[in-house]
């Protein structure tokens, strides 16, 4: 579905990533796992056209394109809910800005509110609900983009452990129920193991894919799955190896 071919980005003369390759298959849940500050978010910014890439190209279903602006939905760590709108109006923003039929969009958003456990909170303001509910609303808004690819930039990292666990199942729902292709950034190994079909382990700057793991265990997964434990040990080994190399 998406091929990232030899993309390069420099910042103040230093390569953030250089000739980076990534292939994202349709319907798959891909996770970019790596240390903080290695350039994962910069890659997303480049892919979405926030700033231009300095080299490489993107292929979308085999066709070249400049950026994913009109092809991907993007959900960030911050929920980015506007305080002057209700939760429902926030979720309807993609429909409002794209000129969709508002009645149909509202019906769809209401269905999603019900599905994601927000029914009854449609008219609440963002300040009136918990962090977990705000992220659910951001998730509804992400679905309202109505795009095949969803980019998730550490969407759960600001939440407490219990809320995060309940929202992980919703992220999984994006793939299983809404048939989205997902590319998610995280530095939480267990989150990656629970959700991903493929984990791309990223190295420190200049960022590159240091290892690629394909996870075939059925979902939903449990932490005590021996296959996952084995991958976790390998990932930790790899990350610790990377850190010790950096410190030398």
């Amino acid at each position: 579905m998406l091929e990232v071919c030899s993309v390069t980005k420099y910042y103040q003369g230093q390569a953030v990533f250089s000739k980076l390759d990534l292939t994202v298959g349709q319907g798959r849940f891909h996770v970019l796992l790596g240390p903080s500050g290695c350039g994962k978010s910069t890659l997303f910014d480049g892919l979405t056209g926030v700033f231009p890439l300095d080299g490489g190209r993107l292929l979308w279903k085999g066709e070249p394109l400049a950026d994913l602006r009109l092809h991907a939905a993007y959900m960030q760590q911050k929920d980015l809910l506007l305080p002057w709108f209700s939760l429902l109006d926030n979720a309807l923003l993609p429909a409002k800005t794209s000129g969709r039929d508002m009645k149909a969009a509202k019906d769809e958003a209401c269905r999603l509110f019900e599905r994601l456990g927000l029914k009854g909170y449609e008219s609440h303001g963002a300040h009136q609900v918990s962090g977990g509910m705000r992220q659910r609303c951001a998730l509804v808004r992400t679905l309202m983009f109505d795009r095949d690819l969803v980019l998730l930039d550490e969407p759960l990292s600001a939440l407490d452990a219990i809320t995060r666990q309940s929202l992980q199942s919703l992220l999984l729902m994006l793939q299983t129920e809404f048939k989205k292709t997902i590319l998610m950034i995280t530095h939480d190994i267990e989150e990656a193991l629970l959700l991903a079909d493929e984990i791309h382990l990223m190295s420190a700057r200049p960022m590159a894919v240091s290892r690629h793991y394909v996870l075939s265990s059925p979902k939903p997964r449990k932490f005590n799955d021996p296959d996952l434990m084995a991958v976790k040990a390998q990932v930790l080994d790899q990350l610790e190896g990377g850190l010790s190399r950096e410190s030398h």
Partner: protein
Amino acid sequence: MNRINFPAALLVALILGAWEAGVRLLSLPVFILPPPSRIIWTALVRAPDIFPHALVTFSEILLGLGLAVATAIPLSIAMFAKPSLEKAFSPFLVASQAIPVFALAPLLVVWLGYGMASKVFMAWIIIFFPISVSLLEGFKSCDPEFRVLFRLMGASFFNTLTLLYWPWALPRFFAGLRVGVGVAGIGAVIGEWVGAQKGLGFLMIQSNARLQTDLVFAAILWLTAMGLALWHFTGILETIIIKWKKEI
């Protein structure tokens, strides 16, 4: 919101008390400095005479405010949308504040006549700057992450303006409006001093020439009351329009 500002009320009471006591102890003639009690008395008893003048000045202030808001909003939007326009207009905006309004008043009376137009224009010159600059800064202060979100939604500039930038900038707009309301009377009164047949400025000049100092102060008192009322009204308007501000 506190209905009564007790520290300010106490300070005013102290100043007025000291003024009253000083004038009486020193036996100052009324035409040099009338005591506050005399000013308040004159402001109330001569209200039928003062009111028509106050109405003219109030109308000039309101028209100046309306004109300033009506011109500052589109100009700020244009300058925000096109930074080259901001570069072009900025020197003129600054110059409009650098030139003393006293210097312009006689010219405006010559060009626009002794009627209301010259006073409205004077008020406009003074009010326009704080409103347009505050609004422009409000637009610019928008969180870049929200801009990215709207960009990814494929929102047009108009959509982004109405759904994001405008509500985002509203608190700054009202801050500018409050400053404008506070100084609006200056422009109108200066215009009336230079050449008018009605208005509180005209009444002040007339009364001063007749050594009716208490009436001069009474006119100032009316002008102050008008300014405070407008300032308070702006605050109420802000609370009504930016409901979400007090809730976040």
